[in-house]
Structures are given as C-alpha cells and as structure tokens.
C-alpha cells in the first residue's frame, strides 16, 4: 500500500486501535493534520496548551489501560510536552508522543521551530526515535506502541520530520515486533516462587504493599484473592489506592508521609512486607534506616532495577504482578492472622482519622462531601498538594482503578488536563477533579476544551489562597515565613461563567451537600469553588528524616493548640 508519511502515521494509529488523540497543530505538523481528514475514526481533541495534550493522553492511558497518544508540532510544541512526558515516565504510564520536526535537510541548522526534542526527552522517555528515513516510519511507530505498553510501561516519543510526513511511504504493517535484548520477564522462576511461599508461610505479621503496578497489571482480583488466602492486611501507596476496595476488611488505605496511622504502624511492625508493583519511593518509606526494621522484604516488580534499589529484598521476584500473584495464591494454603489483624484494628481505634479543624469550612469536609455524593465510587482525578493527601485519606475508593493523580513527579496542574483523558475512557460518566487554587491556575485554559468537547467534568477547587502544602512546610520547618506561597486568583465562579460553565461557591460545611448535589445533577461540566480554611495542615505527617512510626498527629487532637 502506497501512502504518504502522514497517512502512514494515522494508518498505524488506527491499526493500533487508537480512536482519540490530543494535540495542537503547527507549521511542521501541517501535513499530519491535513491527512487526519482521511481518518474519521480517529477523534482529534484540540487542547489549549500542549502540556494538556500530554496529561490528557496520560489520564486516558491510566483510566483505560490502553496507550494514550498526543500529537504536536515541532519546537515549542514539542518542549511544552516535557512536563507531561516526565509525569508519565515517573508513574510508568504508556503514552506515545508524536512530535513533528523540521525537514530532515535542515535538522541541525537551528531552523525556525527546530529543537532537539529526542535529546531533551532522552532521560524522561522509555525510548525515543527520530525518523530519518521513510522506510523506518511504520516499524518505528509499531515499536513505539509495543515499547510503551509492554514490560514496565512508559512514554515513547517519535519525532517526525516534515519531509518524511510529505514524502511517499510504502506501507507494510509488521505482524510482530521484537527488539533485540528487550524481553520483559513476566513469570518468576520456580525457585523464587517456592522461596516466596515458604517466607509467606513462616510470617506472623505479613503486610501486603500494593502499588501502581497492581493497576498496570490489572491484578485487582488477584490481589484480593491473594490477600484473602494469606489473611494479610493490604497497605497502599498513593497510586496503589483503588487497587482493592476500601470496603474490604483487609484494606488499610495509604501509608507513607501522610498515610493513615494504622497503615504506617502495620507496615512498620510487620515481619514480612510483600511489595507488589511499587518502588519504595521516599515519600512512602520515610527514613530508610528506620523503615520496617524487623521485616523481611518480598519484592515483586516487572522492572529488575526496582528490586533492591532502595530497600534490599530477601526474596526478589521479577515478574508481572498478576501472573506472580496467581502462582503464589495457588501454591499457598489458607492462612490465619487474626491476632495480627486485631492488633491493626486496635491501632485504627487508637489513631482514628478525625477532623479537628475549626471555622466554617474545613477542607477535609469537602472530601467527605464528595465521598457522600459519589458514595465513594466516583472517578476522581486529583492535583498535587494538600488536597491530594486529603483525598487519599478521606475518600473511600470503593471502586477499582478510579483514582488518578501525579505521584512520582508531583505535577501541579495535572488534574484538569488529565481529566480530559480520564473522561474519554469513561464517556458520559461524571469525572470529579479535586484541585487547589494554585494547581487550577496552572492549566485552567483547558476549561475551553472541556466546553468544546461537552465533557461532564466536575471541578472542585479547594480554594485557600495559599500554595497549601508548601505553606505547611514553611510553617513547620521555615519559621512560618510565608514567602511566595500566598496566591491570589480570579473569581472562579465568574471565570467559569465566562466559559459557559455553571458554577457555585461554598463557604461553609452546611452548604456542601447542596452544592455537591447540584454538581452531580449538572448536565455537563460544573465548577465548585470551595472557600476552605486557609491555615489547615495535613495530618498525620511523618516529618522528613524520621521513621513512619513517628508520625505527628494533629496537635488539636490532644488539645495542644
């Protein structure tokens, strides 16, 4: 089949099953957008800033389990993707980023809108390509999708010079893709399985640590069956929330810097940690020398480089979490850890999650109201900061794979554009965005895209006039000198109105249920501006340099403030 390069690109995407892309055109990308007219099965969403295209593709990939695609022009179009690509890299999200490039003949001459985007993105992509010959184009695109979604997923960037897009391309779509030396191990060796089964049988206080890898491997059911079989509590990382319904008797919620006390105490006092698809991030472990001092570590990850990277593993298991869990569950008898679970319950009773905030609208109450209106089963996209931690603590996550946020990179401004993609994976269903007034102002231009696409996205702004998490650190560690953290903003209700989005403001706890009901009933997008207490801190908190058992609780809990 004879096509031009641009048509070959869309043909590849169509054959990979892509039906939606987020993008922004420009000079070098003109041939690409021109050829799109011949592919009506692919819906292009025009965003308002390229960063949003990358986050939308990322949100779509997390929510759908498929590869997300963004398409932009050369130069500034390409560099605007960088934060979005790095976000996807840190959280192992399969994204294919297509960037147009100046013509091959002028590459390296500092031509108009030329930038070495493969050089720039080298450390933040799983792999990237500059296509220099038409004969490589189809193979490269096929490989890009293959690499993005297999093994430990990640972003792959393909740079497409304009003359390649215009020039002829003999289209031959290879059935199979291979890369020499690229063979992700999905099945653990029998020896390791036997050792793992032995170690689990020997443990008295086992704790399962569920990370993002459980979502990536779609191992939700296998996680539940495994945890039930060995009767062990399940602690989540931030991105591991929603791997197991919080209704389950074994689900403890999130541990780490702002983890709930009982989850941290369980992990700290365990004699065996079974880490599943998580990478022992510093926000999760606290001070490493004090992390779970009496625990052996059974570490399951598809990426061998994550095993032993921060915490040495007694039993290393390289493999796909789903396949490993299946094998483990079938090789283990029913275990009983009721005393250990009773101990964990006692901790839960002693250190409950309570709102001690004063004033008309404590921020935690906003999350509680969101939880009530969605019955803990909504699709939630959170930005980064204090509100993100309150969502992690106070939302119930009764639904599997329903929570999306930037974990590893901690990208403020992620939530609104990411919700475009999450929404595309859940058409027609309301998607709830929880965002601070700082993060919202980083990418609020996407309100126009939400309206353009008529998406039923509900944006809940936790509006406290501060960059709250940074302000909290200034209060605790920098003598309460609030430098650079007070932030002003427009009247968000009027702003929404100018985009044609219905909006409300809530200033007191009593108004929340009404406001959230209005948001839920809205026929399309809705914005809810919650004027929350300005000086509220997130507790519990494990302070930097301390261990996870030394969490600091809200001082008002004991009437100290």
């Amino acid at each position, binding site marked *: 089949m004879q096509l031009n390069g641009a048509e070959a690109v869309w043909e590849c995407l169509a054959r990979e099953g892509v039906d939606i892309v987020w993008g922004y055109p420009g000079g070098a990308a003109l041939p690409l957008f021109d050829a799109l007219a011949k592919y009506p099965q692919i819906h292009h969403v025009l965003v308002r800033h390229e960063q949003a295209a990358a986050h939308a593709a990322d949100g779509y990939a997390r929510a759908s389990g498929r590869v997300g695609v963004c398409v932009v022009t050369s130069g500034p179009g390409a560099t605007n993707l960088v934060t979005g690509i790095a976000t996807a890299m840190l959280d192992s999200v399969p994204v294919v980023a297509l960037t147009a490039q100046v013509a091959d003949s002028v590459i390296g001459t500092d031509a108009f809108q030329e930038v070495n985007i*493969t*050089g720039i993105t*080298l*450390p933040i992509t*799983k*792999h990237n390509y*500059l296509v*220099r010959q038409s004969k490589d184009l189809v193979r490269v695109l096929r490989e890009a999708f293959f*690499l993005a979604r297999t093994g430990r997923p990640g972003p792959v960037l393909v740079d497409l010079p304009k003359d390649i897009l215009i020039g002829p391309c003999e289209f031959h779509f290879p059935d*199979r893709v*291979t*890369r*020499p*030396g*690229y063979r992700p191990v999905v099945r653990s060796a029998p020896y390791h399985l036997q050792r793992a089964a032995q170690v689990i049988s020997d443990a008295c206080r086992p704790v399962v640590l569920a990370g993002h890898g459980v979502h990536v491997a779609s191992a939700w059911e296998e996680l539940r069956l495994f945890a039930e079989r060995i009767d062990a509590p399940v602690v989540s990382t931030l991105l591991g929330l929603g791997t197991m319904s919080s209704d389950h008797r074994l689900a403890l919620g999130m541990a780490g810097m702002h983890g709930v006390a009982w989850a941290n105490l369980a992990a700290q006092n365990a004699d065996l940690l079974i880490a599943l698809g998580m990478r022992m991030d510093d926000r999760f472990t606290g001070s490493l020398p004090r992390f779970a001092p009496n625990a052996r570590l059974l570490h399951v990850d598809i*990426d*061998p*480089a994550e095993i*032993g*990277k921060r915490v040495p593993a007694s039993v290393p298991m390289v493999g796909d979490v789903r396949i490993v869990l299946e094998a483990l569950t079938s090789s283990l008898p029913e275990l009983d850890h009721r005393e250990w679970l009773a101990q964990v319950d006692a901790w839960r009773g002693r250190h409950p999650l309570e709102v001690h905030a004063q004033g008309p609208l404590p921020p935690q109450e906003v999350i509680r109201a969101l939880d009530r209106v969605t019955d803990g089963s909504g699709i939630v996209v959170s930005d980064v900061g204090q509100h993100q931690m309150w969502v992690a603590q106070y939302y119930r996550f009764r639904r599997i794979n329903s929570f999306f946020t930037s974990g590893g990179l901690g990208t403020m401004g992620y939530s609104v554009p990411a919700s475009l993609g999450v929404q595309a994976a859940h058409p027609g269903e309301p998607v709830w965005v929880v965002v601070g007034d700082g993060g919202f102002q980083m990418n609020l231009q996407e309100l126009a895209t939400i309206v353009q696409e008529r998406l039923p996205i509900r944006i809940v702004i936790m509006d406290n006039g501060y960059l709250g998490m940074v302000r909290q650190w200034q209060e605790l560690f920098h003598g309460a000198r609030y430098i650079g953290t007070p932030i002003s903003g427009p009247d968000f209700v009027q702003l929404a109105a100018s985009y044609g989005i219905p909006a409300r403001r809530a200033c007191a706890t009593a108004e929340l249920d009404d406001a959230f009901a209005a948001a839920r009933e809205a026929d399309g997008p809705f914005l809810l501006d919650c004027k929350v207490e300005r000086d509220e801190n997130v507790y519990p908190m494990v302070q930097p340099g301390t261990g996870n058992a030394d969490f600091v609780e809200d001082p008002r809990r004991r009437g100290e403030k």
Partner: protein
Amino acid sequence: MRHVLVALVQDEPAMLARMGNLFARRGYNVESFTAGASELAGMTRVTIVVEGPDTALDQVAKQFRKLIGAVKVVDVTSDPEQLAYEMLLVKVGVNSKTRQEVVSLADLFKARIVDVSSTTLILEATGEPDKLEKFVEVLRPFGIKEQARTGAVFMSRGAKLLNRRPISPTDRKYLSD
C-alpha cells in the same frame, strides 16, 4: 571500587548519548569508554571502566540493561579469566643524548617507534593498562609532550562467550534489515 562493564548494543544513532546520560545522571566517574564493531552485524561492543560503590554500580548495570538497544550487559569485574588490552601513543621529547635511552626503554616494554623527529619520538605500545601505566612512568622524566590512550577492551579467555545466549532468528532478521 573499579568496575568493568562489557556490553553489546545496537549500532544506532543516540545510543552513545543514552549510555553517557546513564552514567552522568548518577554522577559516576567513567575512567574509560571504548566502542567498536563486534562479531555481530549491527552490534557495537562497548567497554566501560567506571569507579563507584558496588551497590551503586549494580544499579547502573541494571539501568544499563533497561536501555532499549542494549542487548547484553555484563559486569566482568570479578572474572579472573579476563584479558585486558589497551593501546597507547606517546610523544616524548628527546635530544641527541637521551634518544638512545628512550629507544632502549621502548624495546624493554616491547613498544614500537612509529615517528621520529629531531626533538621527539612517538611510541606505540599495546598491553594491559597497568603495564602501560608503568611505561608512561619511566618515560615521564624525558618529558611527555602528548599522550593518547584508547581505553581498555576486555575478553574472556578460553571458550567462554560474552553473548552466551545466541541471538534469536527473529532478532537476527531484525538486525539485518
């Protein structure tokens, strides 16, 4: 500790940059880096001598294996059966009195004289890095004007192969495309 990594990587643009980035990002000091054709078409054999703590180097080897295009990465540091060879070119200042002495030293170290001028000699020597080090030391008093070293390449003695698992037919087909 000093580590030696030997790798087979695909001969692709930017492969060098990918490897360089890997070491630079984690702040390792690369002592030498050599790259050249291997016995396999489309595959480059690279040898990297790097200084760093063992656990950190283990992590770098793992990250190296993750690079798309890295087909085989082996840390050969602890293999006693390694041959290590490096080439040295050194330009030594001489006069009529010292010339003969430098020539005899070259002879002693089995180095070749590859260029002669009235004030300089260029010597070429090949051997283990330590031996070359000693050679440079004895030449130093005469005045070393210029020195170039290739960095060491390593190979196991006997029948042992770096690429024990032969390249699969599909991979071979890919490489020949």
